[in-house]
């Protein structure tokens, strides 16, 4: 992969979006762009499907926060692991999950990642290090710490990233986990996505001090970064993962961002208007995909058609995923009684 295509005028948008291993910086920028666009297309597609009543459950969309998932996952290897959240689609796509199997899961089909047992908030693909989205706020943090414990125990140099939100920063398990990871020097990165709102509450109204400062109390390396700047996130994640791989222990990154859509789709039936229009407008101007596009074009003006082709290709991938999901079977009702115990015990 690389930039030869667009320079030669024969753009191959398919070449971007499946890895973060470009041979040069521009190629990498296109890959980061492609993966953010895939997440955006996936979430916009879900927004439409929800509005049309085509999803059995509810969804929490990641629109506006794509730079964090992509920036962080772009420095991870396949054997690295992540834990994710109720707003997890972006983390999973950025780690390499197949959007067809994700879409099928969210539609409750048997072809989905969890055969229809998990849904939006619980998608996992353990084989590529996705230890699960998690419906409990903060629930994945101890699990990520345990994943890092396993790597430390066996002497493996892989790392685990625990994605969580500002809401989870007020859960006791974060503080317990930072303490445990610090005393055992575990290779884990606690990555807080501070999107300003804890459900429908302003986070600053219910959260004392700065979230990044909380890690300092436990001796963690801490950083606050612009969560809408994919390069800034990538840089912080690079430092944190290199430290972890070298045996230096855990870090805490607070990535400041904003949730553009609802807490969950459909909130308008009860939420009323809880955010000022100017606030949303301000953050729309700081859209992470827009910012990254501007950066690429500032350096490589001729890239505009390439970016459009990439966006188009990513949308097509998601459309194909929707078609795959819609064509998939619903699970057999009796399969609800399967998969509880690994040895089939009742």
């Amino acid at each position: 992969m690389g930039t030869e295509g667009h320079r030669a005028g024969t753009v191959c948008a398919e070449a971007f979006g499946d890895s973060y291993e470009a041979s040069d910086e521009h190629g990498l920028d296109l890959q980061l762009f492609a993966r953010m666009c895939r997440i955006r297309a996936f979430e916009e597609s879900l927004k439409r499907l929800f509005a049309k009543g085509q999803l059995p459950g509810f969804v929490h969309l990641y629109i506006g926060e794509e730079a964090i998932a992509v920036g962080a996952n772009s420095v991870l290897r396949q054997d690295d692991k992540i834990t994710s959240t109720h707003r997890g689609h972006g983390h999973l796509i950025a780690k390499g999950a197949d959007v067809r199997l994700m879409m099928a899961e969210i539609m409750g089909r048997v072809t989905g990642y969890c055969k229809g047992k998990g849904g939006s908030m619980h998608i996992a693909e353990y084989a590529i290090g996705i230890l699960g989205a998690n419906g409990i706020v903060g629930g994945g943090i101890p699990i990520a710490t345990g994943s890092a414990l396993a790597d430390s125990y066996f002497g493996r140099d892989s790392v685990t990233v625990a994605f969580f939100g500002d809401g989870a920063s007020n859960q006791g398990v974060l503080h317990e986990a930072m303490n445990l990871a610090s005393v055992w020097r575990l290779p884990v990165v606690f990555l807080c996505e501070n999107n300003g709102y804890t459900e429908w509450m302003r986070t600053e109204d219910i959260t004392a001090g700065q979230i990044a400062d909380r890690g300092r109390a436990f001796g963690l390396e801490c950083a606050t970064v612009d969560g809408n700047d994919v390069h800034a996130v990538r840089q912080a994640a690079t430092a944190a993962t290199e430290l972890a791989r070298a045996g230096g222990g855990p870090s805490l990154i607070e990535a400041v961002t904003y949730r553009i859509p609802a807490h969950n789709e459909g909130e308008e039936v009860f939420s009323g208007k809880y955010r000022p229009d100017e606030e949303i407008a301000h953050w729309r101007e700081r859209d992470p995909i827009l910012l990254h596009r501007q950066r690429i074009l500032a350096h490589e003006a001729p890239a505009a058609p390439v970016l459009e082709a990439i966006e188009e290709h990513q949308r097509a991938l998601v459309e194909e995923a929707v078609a795959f999901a819609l064509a998939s079977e619903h699970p057999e009702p009796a399969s609800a009684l399967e998969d509880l115990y690994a040895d089939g015990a009742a």
Partner: protein
Amino acid sequence: MTTTYMARAIADALNEAMAEDPSVMVIGEDVELSTIGATKGLVERFGQNRVRNSPISEATVVGACVGAAACGVRPVMDLMFSSFFYVALDQVANQAARLRYMSGGQVELPLVLFTGTGPSGSAAAQHSENPHPLLMSLSGVKVVFPSTPADARALLVESVRDPNPVVFLLDLMLAGSKGEISDPPHRVPLGKGVIRRVGTDVTVVAIGSAVPQSLEAAEVLANEGVAVEVIDPRTLVPLDDELIESSVRRTGRLVVADPARATCGAAAEIITRVVDRCWMDLRSAPVRVAWEDVPIPYAPALESHVTLTADKIAAAIRAAVA
């Protein structure tokens, strides 16, 4: 045959499990020191990478065991007192018991949550809990509740080998008890109960420390001309329904002695199953003998008033055969 204390049997099982599988870790509060002796000597033999004192952070340590189990470790966590399960309940109920099912069976979580459980004599309400009814209702964790050193040893080894989350409850009333262990130690699979005393008039299903209490009651009833059969299910998830039902079909009567509050307890579940499947074989109404529906109080006179005793079990048996 050798005579062994319960705590020694647990330590022997952990020694065996750690020796046979290098992925077995033991984690918990004071596992190096070991207050009841269950993990004594392990750190000296297996080192601090495999035997780790943890902070008092039950939720996170249980969760870390879940994460480690998903990534190749077989953790055994010592929670010390089962009342502390409530501190860790999110990670037990929402995570350990859910992650395999929610993922469509993608992952195995071979972890053991070991703990002392139940009243141990004036430990009062926050150190005397028996959480097995709640754990049984979770779906997704196996629950082991042995009553003899030999079974405790055998079942702990099997629990560590099991590919699922297992809660291993060591009844603190039995922690200082002794029992015979054969050489080599016998094997007991999870889900197999045992008949402790053969009888023809009434079946008593007894859990944990209620087993020796029921055997004591059976002796008393024998003098009254009642032949009591005592069944020790040993594991509650999975439960050996077949053994219980076949016994009830022979005796026609059932008493369940359950060291837990009566409401929604294991006794309620076992009686319901028997009523569903053996109704035509029952010659009298099943009887539940369990704790009063209050927290465990401190003063000895209060504690024994609400918990099980051999006398209460004997009274329940008399009611069943009357």
